[in-house]
């Protein structure tokens, strides 16, 4: 039978914990935890270090990455600064997370994260199934655009939402040498979007008015190329 270990509330461990069995932490641990059983962190627990286990149930504070073969469940009051990786991940209201959250199925498929996020609500149970049709559908759309526009278009398509993705490709089809207003706009807006969140489009109209039309695209393209190389 698997053994149960307990780090009591008044106990403080500095170092690594590893081995078999399950672990309950009520106190504090500075160091990595790696067990093949379940790990439970009660509300008073503090861990600075990475935690790996079959399943993790967290109500305390963690500064480090969480990795579970089965599931990670963050209860109300949990505070996690670090990345979460598990087959299933549950985050209760009142839990706080700062870091990358990833279910293992997605990590294995290797598809771009943001592009698939739009599809996720449709099939919550099976993210893998949802991703597969999504990726091939995106590629032909970008391929149809003019060769000049393509590298930037495909690159940004990863990061932008489905509606944004259409813009650069549409501009590529219609636009020859005299650039339409749409294409610098699209590149301009897509670049910050890659780093920032979905709220960005609100700023777009103000930005597109600013640059005098013919000069700016050249500068933008140069800057974009530099960025790409670096």
């Amino acid at each position: 039978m698997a053994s149960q270990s307990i780090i009591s509330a008044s106990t403080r461990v500095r170092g690594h914990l590893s081995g078999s069995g399950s672990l309950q932490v009520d106190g504090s641990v500075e160091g990595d935890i790696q067990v093949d059983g379940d790990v439970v962190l009660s509300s008073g627990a503090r861990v600075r270090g990475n935690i790996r286990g079959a399943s993790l149930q967290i109500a305390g504070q963690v500064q480090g990455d969480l990795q579970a073969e089965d599931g990670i469940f963050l209860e109300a009051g949990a505070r996690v600064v670090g990345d979460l990786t598990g087959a299933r991940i549950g985050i209760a209201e009142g839990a706080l997370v700062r870091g990358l959250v990833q279910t293992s199925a997605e990590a294995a498929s290797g598809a771009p994260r943001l592009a698939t996020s739009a599809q996720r609500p449709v099939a919550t149970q099976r993210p893998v199934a949802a991703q597969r049709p999504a990726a091939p559908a995106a590629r032909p759309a970008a391929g149809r655009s003019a060769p000049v526009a393509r590298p930037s278009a495909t690159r940004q398509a990863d990061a932008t939402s489905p509606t944004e993705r259409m813009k650069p490709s549409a501009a590529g089809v219609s636009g020859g040498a005299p650039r339409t207003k749409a294409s610098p706009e699209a590149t301009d807006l897509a670049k910050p979007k890659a780093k920032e969140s979905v709220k960005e489009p609100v700023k777009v109209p103000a930005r597109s008015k600013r640059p005098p039309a013919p000069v700016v695209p050249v500068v933008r393209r140069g800057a974009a190329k530099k960025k790409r190389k670096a």
Partner: protein
Amino acid sequence: MAGTVIGEGLSIDGELASEDEVVVHGSLRGTLTTAGVVSVGTEGTVEADVEAASLSVAGRVTGNVNAADRVDIQAGGRLVGDVKAARLTIADGASFKGNVDMDA
């Protein structure tokens, strides 16, 4: 109840400091400091200097022991290291190697 339990199969590398009971069925390397009782089960292994109110050894302990109250080495238990404690008992069948200081 409660207190800290290092279950069988679990090993800790580093310092462990506590205010209450510590039970070791697994293994601990480093230092162990507590205001409470420490007991090392038959399968427990401690390679650490131990500071505690009292220590009971049924497994193996390697390291110096400083107990405020007492140290008991039970049958089958094994202690290698110096002991500083007011009271020390060594059961028949226990093994012990080290200096004893009962001057408290």
